[in-house]
């Protein structure tokens, strides 16, 4: 590795400064990326605001007699509110149980090297690989025999198969990024390993708990396969299942679909924005320096 090619010549610009051209290029690229990421969402909102048959237009129109017609129809003429409630319940239960069950495991596999450590790591990894295709039939039969088909608890149980290993795995990597010196300080002060986890690490890991919780919420919120199969009656459907009806094989109403999509995306994005500031905060930056 001949790394001394440039010698010790100082560069004219300091670090973090750049030329005007480079700035334009940088902002230009980012703007293009923003347009691509936003356009489908903007178009969704615009379509939902068009009148009842506004989506049946071959012309490109941004606005076309904006109205809330689609929204009132979704809320009053369809089972959308029920589906929404079902989805929130299923996702919230999955989130709470997942984080609650998984957090200690995440800590243990991050900090301790115990016999079976690698086995647990592999178990968690492999469980995440499980295609729902292999579990869905046995779970379906199991729920049928327990009478939990078409019930939200049954759906939550199915979601736990994904959420628990995922949460444990995710928290492990967050705990990894908290310096071990912090635990050691706690132990020196006379805490047990569990005490160190509970009183020192967990409070520090609140952002990562939030992220993990949020992520498991989103996974359950957006799940389609289990819900499609498990929830068969109209009033038990979750959003992912119910929306398929709006745009079926023989009849579709993209007005209803876009309006409900906006209604779903708004709370999801709000939760997201509340959590996103914790998504990357360099977790314990500075905690060990003092």
């Amino acid at each position, binding site marked *: *590795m001949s*790394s001394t090619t440039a010698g010790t010549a100082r560069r004219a610009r300091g670090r*973090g400064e*750049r030329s005007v051209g480079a700035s334009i290029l*940088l902002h230009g690229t980012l703007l293009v990326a*923003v347009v*691509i*990421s936003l356009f*489908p*969402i903007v*178009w*969704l909102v615009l*379509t939902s605001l068009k009148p009842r048959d506004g*989506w049946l*237009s071959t012309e*490109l129109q941004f606005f076309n007699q904006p109205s809330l017609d689609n929204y009132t129809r979704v809320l009053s003429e369809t089972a959308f509110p029920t589906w929404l409630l079902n989805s929130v319940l299923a996702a919230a239960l999955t989130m709470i149980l997942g984080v609650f069950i998984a957090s*200690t*495991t995440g800590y*243990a596999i991050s900090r301790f090297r*115990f016999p*079976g450590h690698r086995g647990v790591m592999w178990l968690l*990894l*492999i*469980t*995440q690989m499980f*295609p*729902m*295709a292999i579990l*869905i039939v*046995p779970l379906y039969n*199991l729920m049928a025999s327990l009478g939990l088909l078409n019930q939200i608890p049954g759906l939550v*149980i199915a979601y736990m*198969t994904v959420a*628990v*290993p995922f949460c444990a795995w995710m928290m492990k990597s967050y705990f990894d990024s908290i*310096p*071990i010196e912090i*635990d050691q300080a706690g*132990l*020196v002060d*006379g805490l*047990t390993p569990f005490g160190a986890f509970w009183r020192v690490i967990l409070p520090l890991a609140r952002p990562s708990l939030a992220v993990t919780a949020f992520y498991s919420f*989103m996974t359950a*919120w*957006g*799940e*389609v*396969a289990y819900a499609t*199969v498990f929830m068969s009656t109209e009033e038990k459907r979750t*959003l992912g299942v119910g929306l*398929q009806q709006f745009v079926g094989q023989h009849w579709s109403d*993209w007005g209803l679909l*876009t309006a409900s*999509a906006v209604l779903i*995306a708004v709370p999801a*994005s709000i939760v*997201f924005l509340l959590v996103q500031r914790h*998504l*990357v905060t*360099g977790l314990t930056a500075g905690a060990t320096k003092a």
Partner: protein
Amino acid sequence: MPTSTGRVTRATGGRAADGDATRGQGRSHRRGEPGRFRRSTGRHWYAWAMVTPVLIVVGVLVGWPLARGLYLSMTDATEATMGRTIGVNVIPSTYEFVGIDNYLAILTGGLFWQKLAWTVVWTVACVALHYGIGLGLALMLHRKLRFRSAYRLLLILPWAIPAFVSAFIWRYLYNSDYGVINGMLEAVGLGAVGWLNDPSTARIAVIAVNVWLGVPFMMVAMLGGLQAIPGELYEAAEVDGASPWQRFRHITLAGLRTVSSTVVLLGTIWTFNMFPVIFLISGGGPGSSTEILVTYAFREAFTGVRNYSGSAAWGVIILLVLILLALVYRRALRKQGEVW
């Protein structure tokens, strides 16, 4: 520079192990040198107690269905032969054990290999684009930049929207008659394209959607990784006269390796098993050209005459493919000195 790179890797890789060793010392000091055995059982007792809840959940909720799935895959269970309860009548199961017939049928038929090939193309294309674009955007956002948080927020948005909602949005955008993509093509004088009606455009279409969905996650993960790299390393390398490329290669990429290895593996698994995008956008069509292994297995199990055993066999094969992939991946990581 090689030294600084080495330092980063060692710090991340060896932290937990070092910590354990020092913790052992700390405790033995306090308790006045207990025996090695007691010290180790004490430590392991905590570890196992903490791991137990997950082991129970995984054992019951995943282990049992898995065992049953394995068994079903070696039977001829279908909707017709599966026991069920209709009203007060309990119909017993009549399916029989058939050994590996289902597997043989799948592996010797052409359909499986065709689906596997497309699933591999789909996974590789999606993950490569996720990682490349995600890393590129993260590098840009990591600089000193005006409106940085605004950019970051707007770029994360596709991730904030549930995947099934995005799938519906895109299906509308791709709509051949009323979709905005065709609308724009026609506005500039190009003909409309039946995006989801032709196998090759449908494949491009679903990959595009999945890339749109998955980039923000990679971007955020990479950004987190970048922020964890100490700035002093760059300063030291610059003083030592490293070129920008060398700094990128030996500090940035090396520092991102732990994060990258995890997210690429996760991304691969998620994409391989990505159900909603395919199921909701193209429905596997036209024909079954965009059907990946998971959606196909789902269709086997829950459409027409429900072929439970065949679907379970597909599931087992998919799982084996993924485990094989993870093993190869781990071996590759281990060669680079990343061990777990």
